[in-house]
């Protein structure tokens, strides 16, 4: 079992990073009731962990007995009926799914599953709760129509089920939904907190950690706790006992992008552009999301540039990322960014050195 899963806090009391939020949530559900919740925050900040712990707090250990199901829904969409397949995780009291996986048909999924939950509610024995919980991941990827239909459904079925929504950026969730939920912001853990968690894991595993080693991992992790723990485990596999000089292995795709960045800096020509394109394809084939490639590339380029060029470059990065979002094929826009950068940089070199 990976350490990330092994040391994932199971209850609200065990949570180390967002103690205050955890205690507040505990208070919230202790009154036998719970509003709709919207968790938002950057990746690796602990949203999911908090949600799982919250479910356990509400329903006891039963919430941990989950089964994975691949289900098919038959949906009547006006004149025709369509089949939608989706993987869900469910226990007796909750269902979890990522409606974004259904693409543009997400609207039907949300309505259909909530209606179904309303039909077979858990029976209200010995004062147990009479509602189920639906956990929706990545609501920021939901289409606008789905979000609109969600807002009606949320009110109509509020007696039967509670929604817990989870997303990275709350700007992409419509105001109508945000105002119907209790918003919980989860910030990324600070580096000190990451160090604390790493030391805790080290102690449990019986490892000796040299001074400053955990801090270096934390610094590399970009305030992403999941990534910090994964890196920590990688280091453990590579070399133990740790030495304080030990190199922390960077992600291979990051190294690859930094290679691309230095390629671009060295030569600006159509031939080089062609080579870079091959490398970008390589990254895309390996399922690195294009916006992450672009962001990382920008980061690498900004590190090497003069201050006066930085404004131009970051403007064009934002511009092409937007175009990428509107368009279909990411490679065009990545390449366009590289070409734009080359042209700007070349003009800058000529202007400076003649």
């Amino acid at each position, binding site marked *: 079992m990976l350490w990330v899963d092994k040391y994932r806090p199971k209850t609200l009391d065990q949570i180390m990073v967002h103690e205050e939020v955890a205690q*507040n949530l505990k*208070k*919230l559900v202790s*009154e*036998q*009731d719970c*509003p709709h919740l919207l968790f*938002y*925050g*950057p990746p690796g*900040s602990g949203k999911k962990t908090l949600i799982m712990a919250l479910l356990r707090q509400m329903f006891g250990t039963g919430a941990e007995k989950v089964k994975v199901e691949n289900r098919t829904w038959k949906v009547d969409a006006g004149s025709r009926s369509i089949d939608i397949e989706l993987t869900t995780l469910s226990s007796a009291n909750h269902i979890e799914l990522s409606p974004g996986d259904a693409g543009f048909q997400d609207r039907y999924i949300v309505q259909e599953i909530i209606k179904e939950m309303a039909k077979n509610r858990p029976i*209200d024995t010995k004062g147990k709760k*009479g*509602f189920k919980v639906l956990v929706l991941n990545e609501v920021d990827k939901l289409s606008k129509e789905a979000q*609109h239909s969600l*807002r*009606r459904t949320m009110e109509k079925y*509020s*007696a039967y089920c509670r929604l817990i929504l989870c997303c990275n*950026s*709350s*700007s*992409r969730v419509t105001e109508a939904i*945000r*105002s119907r939920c*209790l*918003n919980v*912001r*989860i*910030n*990324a853990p600070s580096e000190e907190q990451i160090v604390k968690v790493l030391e805790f894991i080290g102690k449990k595993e019986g490892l000796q950690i040299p001074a400053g080693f955990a801090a270096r991992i934390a610094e590399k992790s*970009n*305030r992403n706790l999941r990534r910090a723990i994964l890196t920590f485990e990688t280091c453990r596999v590579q070399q133990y006992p740790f030495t304080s000089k030990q190199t922390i292995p960077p992600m291979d795709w990051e190294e690859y992008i930094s290679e691309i960045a230095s390629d671009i800096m060295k030569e600006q020509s159509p031939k080089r552009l062609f080579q870079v394109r091959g490398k970008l394809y390589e990254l895309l084939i390996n399922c690195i999301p294009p*916006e992450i490639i*672009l*962001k990382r590339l*920008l980061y690498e380029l*900004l590190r090497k540039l003069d*201050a*006066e*060029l*930085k*404004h*131009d470059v*970051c*403007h064009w*990065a*934002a*511009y092409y*990322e*937007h175009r990428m*979002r*509107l368009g279909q094929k990411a490679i065009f826009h990545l390449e366009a960014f590289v070409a734009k950068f080359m*042209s*700007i*940089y*070349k*003009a*800058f070199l000529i*202007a400076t050195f003649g």
Partner: protein
Amino acid sequence: MAPVLQSSQPWVEKYRPKQVKDVAHQDEVVRVLTNTLETGSCPHMLFYGPPGTGKTTTALAIAHQLFGPELYKSRVLELNASDDRGINVVRTKIKDFAAVAVGSGQRHSGYPCPPYKIIVLDEADSMTEDAQNALRRTMETYSKVTRFFFICNYISRIIEPLASRCAKFRFKPLSEEIMSSRILYICKEEGLHLDSEATATLSSISQGDLRRAITYLQSAARLFGSSISSKDLISVSGVIPAEVVQALLAACKSGNFDLANKEVNNFIAEGYPASQMLSQLLEAIVEADDISDEQKARISKKLGEADKFLVDGADEYLQLLDVASCTMRALCNMPEEFSYES
């Protein structure tokens, strides 16, 4: 069906004024409608104004006061944006309801019960133009037995022929004193403790929208218990603390790109929504005294563009960085055009 728990009822519903005279701050409308209650005569109405100022509340209250609970179901049709409201609905549902004749006006168990029905069209500005056009004739044909209440945020989205058939009432945003008096009333009823600073914060972050203020208050009460500070309210509302906005602005003023980049990175890691940052940044810049008009215009233009890009789904970090870089160039009087564009 299990009984809905008392605490799960939103306070917005719980404290919705039941009578027209309880509606705060909208004196004109209240005066006209009180008159209606006495005489029983009523024109078509068009309520417009920003959200949370009491438009729906007023419409529902007058309907309840005119007909009472018994007749309400048969005399009032309520349609809002989440119901289907295409042209078909106008042609069938609304027309059918409008065409039904009602008995002559007799007082019924203490309510005036005038001889007409009321159709409330909430969020009428989201109706299509075709649907609005289809309503024109219906309104006139059945004007003997039906009154229409249109409710909308933007009067410009209601077609002129409809607007000219109605008595128009503008609902003003609530002033801070009225907000705080209402908030304090709810606090007293719910047994909450709010210090004066928190009350002021709540009035200012909700910007004249009483519904939003009450929602924030309830969320804070659920999360933090009965004594609420202004910090709790800010964390519930998703408003970004002023220090964070100022820090970004200061970084832009310094003219150091890397510093601004670091601030933006931090901001994203803290998980605040970028769209909120844009609107608060706009507020801070418009109000600032040490920025020239031209600089303000440059920054505002960029903010508008970035907001549109965010709606399209662009990445928050990149957009915010672009905004920060543009703000910095404006504040440090660097040229607007990029120097090395070919």
